[in-house]
């Protein structure tokens, strides 16, 4: 925990600077998009959030597998502490996506498979939190939570496939930017920077959240008194 405390500030400042610089670059320096106009600049806020929200679930699944196989108690804490962070990033992705939808699609919500799957992800994060909180016995709750996360991770490839089916049957009108030829390099660099920076910020949040989790669960242990 001491090492993590020391690393935390480095991660935080580096990723914050990277994120802010690439957001600034994306908002003011990159040229206007020909198809969507200036509203495409939301991509620098939307794509990192939706990308990280899915990778956080995969991280949770890996942590819960580690917990179930090797009984590492820390990874169970990690599963519990990632869940609210994942809910927040998914919320950001949903909100920014629907605001982006107003100027580009003319409506703030489309029952498109990708949007619905993000909503499902959000509901699942909330459900995981409520399941864990309903048990007063934390060890049992850890076990059930990690089982549910593992079973739920089956959903991710299914969701990916359903996106393909959906777009084959329904002609997507002017929905995605992936129809265009590949993104120009001038736009790609700040996007990449904002993804990495946002990942760093989210990692800091996960560190804080798991620290809170450790302090809560281990409050009766003697080493925690030395640490505090």
């Amino acid at each position, binding site marked *: 925990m001491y090492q993590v405390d020391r690393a935390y500030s480095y991660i935080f400042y580096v990723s914050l600077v990277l994120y802010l610089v690439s957001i600034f670059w994306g908002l003011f320096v990159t040229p206007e998009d020909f198809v969507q106009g200036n509203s495409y600049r939301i991509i620098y806020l939307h794509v990192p959030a939706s990308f990280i929200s899915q990778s956080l679930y995969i991280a949770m699944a890996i942590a819960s597998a580690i917990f179930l196989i090797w009984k590492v108690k820390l990874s169970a804490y990690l599963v519990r502490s990632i869940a609210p962070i994942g809910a927040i990033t998914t919320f950001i992705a949903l909100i920014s996506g629907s605001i982006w939808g107003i100027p580009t699609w003319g409506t703030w919500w489309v029952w498109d*498979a990708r949007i619905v799957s993000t909503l499902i992800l959000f509901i699942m994060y909330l459900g995981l939190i409520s399941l864990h909180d309903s048990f007063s016995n934390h060890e*049992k709750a850890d076990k*059930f939570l990690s*089982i*549910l996360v593992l*079973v739920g991770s089956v959903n991710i490839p*299914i969701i990916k496939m359903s996106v393909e*089916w959906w777009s084959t*049957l329904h002609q997507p009108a002017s929905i995605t930017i992936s129809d265009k030829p590949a993104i120009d390099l001038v736009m790609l660099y700040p996007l990449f920077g904002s993804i990495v920076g946002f990942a760093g910020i989210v990692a800091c949040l996960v560190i804080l959240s798991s620290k809170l989790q450790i302090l809560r669960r281990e409050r009766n242990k003697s080493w925690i008194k030395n640490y505090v």
Partner: protein
Amino acid sequence: MNIIKFELLKLRNKSRGWLGPILVFILIMVAFPLTVEISNKDLDQSFFAVLWIAVLLVMMLATEDIFLEDFNDGSLEQFAISDISFPYIISVKIFIYWLLIGVPISIIGSLFCLGFTNSGNLAINIFPILLITSYIFINVFSFGNALSLTKGSVLGTLVTLPLLLPLLIVLGKAVISINLNLNYLGFVALLLGVLSIIIFLIPLIISYIIRAHLE
């Protein structure tokens, strides 16, 4: 063989357990046209939407106390330490529930389909899909119930509900392709594939969960 008979008798005598969900299903199917204009030509479109949601909710209702009573009177503990393998007992239990609730609902659902859409072809084709779907739903919801065994059934089924939503997309696609006379066997094969994985995996997971509950 003995255990199948035993579970069948147990569920048959508890008529609230199997008759209630079927009646709720019939009630939903009878009541929803009242909210739509009778002559509305979109009725058979909305029929399928209501049908899948009704099956989903009824299965949620049906698995409400699938493990709870056995857990409370201690017979689940007896099963867990008996000679017969515990996942086998659980899969038998789920199968009996499907036999007494899922199969009647599939028959009634395809009859309603005949009544609403006036198309025998559609009603015949929807029947196997309903059978497979209800079995998948019952499996996943009993997993949810096992998760929140002592905490009431609502929480666990709510948590597992999002797992089933991609399946609803597949079902919608299957109905569209039946309507357009396209080949829908791919969707049936996909549902069967999902079922064949679930049918083996879910009893194993549930037995692990219930053992954790009994600790």
